[in-house]
């Protein structure tokens, strides 16, 4: 272009003679950039971002505004399970995550030791999550890659579990669902449809769905999680061990779980905690039970039907037989103070829960009946000793399930 040439019609800036910006080149750059970011997002989650971790501790979990993606968690599993091993994915809540147990003594490590080399135990539990959250979706998404798999999660007696998980972890469902990683399961599809159509949150949930659909193409959550884990975190969050570390790469944080074995008793069992947890323990099986004519505890029909409906819908039918539901009990520190009658009611509720899950083809097992108060760090979470007992209680059931499912042939 010579200096005497008139300004082209498509120039957006620059001198009268020469444009600074070329709109079509800019658009090409934008599309190229988006394509590169999309490719990078798909690529970075092919390797494990957390090779040193045994679980998703708070600095790589929603506790600190870090939301692990399906790609990230699937890579976490692939890095820990060989194709010739039976995959055991542990989902569920903080009890199975191992709150109160340091990473080197977490119960899933003990479970791995007890089960041996033939199995690979991967802990994908999250604080406060339900049996149908993160670990469940990851296991389901890996059903073809690791067909010999067992999924473990925990509930309290007669605890309901939605097929779409709970709100705090629903980002994982959205990620899995809109990337097409889940089986078609009509009850879940319907529940998600109802969730999205709720008039009170329709606009917000529509945006969220749109975000998940865009992410399925652009992989921005995968890319920026990789960036946050390996380069630096891009914003400050209130959950920080030290404000100076606000932007530190998340993969550099260690799993510094509280050790219940060293935490003084009065910190774990303060008078206010005891008062509150006593009330919770007393109410463990209160809903729906009353005495019948034979002076035995009996669950009301409506409560039973509600629980059975949840159990029927929680997991796709073909995944139920490989799903082991653990029924968690409260610490004997609290339950021993209950009247015999309430203890009987709890046992009835636990038996009803096991029977309810087994009716639909799940495996179910309760634990904690023979545990001592020292096995619990608080009302529900286990100490290292309690975790070891849980592993030893659970392992035979897993082995029996593996045999039953034909995994050991």
């Amino acid at each position: 272009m010579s200096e005497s040439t008139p300004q082209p019609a498509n120039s957006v800036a620059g001198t009268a003679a020469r444009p600074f910006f070329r709109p079509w080149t800019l658009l090409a750059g934008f599309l190229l950039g988006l394509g590169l970011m999309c490719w990078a997002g798909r690529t970075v989650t092919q390797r494990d971002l957390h090779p040193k971790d045994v679980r998703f501790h708070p600095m790589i979990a929603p506790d600190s505004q870090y939301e692990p993606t399906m790609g990230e968690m699937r890579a976490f599993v692939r890095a820990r399970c060989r194709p010739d091993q039976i995959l055991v994915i542990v989902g569920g809540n903080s009890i199975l995550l191992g709150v109160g147990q340091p990473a080197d003594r977490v119960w899933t490590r003990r479970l791995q030791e007890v089960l041996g080399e033939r199995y690979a135990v991967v802990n994908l539990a999250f604080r406060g999550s339900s049996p149908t959250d993160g670990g469940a979706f990851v296991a389901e998404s890996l059903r073809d890659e690791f067909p010999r798999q067992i999924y473990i999660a925990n509930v309290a007696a007669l605890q309901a579990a939605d097929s779409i998980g709970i709100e705090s972890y629903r980002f994982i469902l959205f990620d899995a669902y809109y990337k097409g990683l889940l089986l078609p399961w009509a009850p879940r599809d319907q529940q998600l449809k109802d969730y999205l159509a709720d008039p009170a949150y329709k606009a917000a949930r529509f945006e969220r769905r749109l975000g998940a659909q865009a992410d399925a193409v652009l992989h921005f959550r995968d890319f920026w999680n990789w960036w946050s884990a390996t380069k630096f975190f891009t914003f400050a969050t209130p959950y920080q061990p030290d404000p100076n570390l606000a932007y530190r790469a998340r993969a550099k944080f260690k799993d510094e779980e509280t050790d219940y074995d060293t935490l003084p008793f009065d910190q774990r069992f303060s008078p206010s905690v005891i008062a509150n947890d006593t009330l919770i323990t007393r109410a463990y099986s209160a809903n729906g039970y009353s005495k019948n004519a034979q002076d035995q505890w009996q669950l009301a029909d409506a409560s039973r039907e509600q629980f059975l409906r949840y159990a029927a819908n929680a997991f796709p039918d073909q995944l139920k037989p490989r799903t082991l539901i653990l029924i968690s009990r409260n610490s004997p520190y609290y339950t021993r103070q209950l009247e015999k009658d309430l203890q009987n009611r709890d046992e009835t509720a636990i038996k009803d829960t096991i029977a309810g899950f087994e009716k639909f083809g799940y495996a179910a097992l309760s634990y904690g009946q023979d545990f001592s108060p020292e096995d619990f760090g608080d009302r529900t979470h286990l100490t290292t000793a309690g975790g070891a007992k849980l592993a030893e209680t659970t392992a035979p059931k897993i082995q029996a399930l593996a045999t039953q499912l034909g995994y050991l042939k």
Partner: protein
Amino acid sequence: MPTAIRKFWDQLPSPTATLLSHFGSLAVGVLAAFILHYVLYRIGLPSKPFIYVAF
């Protein structure tokens, strides 16, 4: 546009200016994509962390 930059721009040989304008536009496009990609990630995160209390 500051005068000094305008003068510099006007004095550049034509092929160089054309090349620079294409390169600059491409870079700005890539940068815009990078920013959009980050914004999409950031707006999808919750505004507050998930608070969990064990006891």
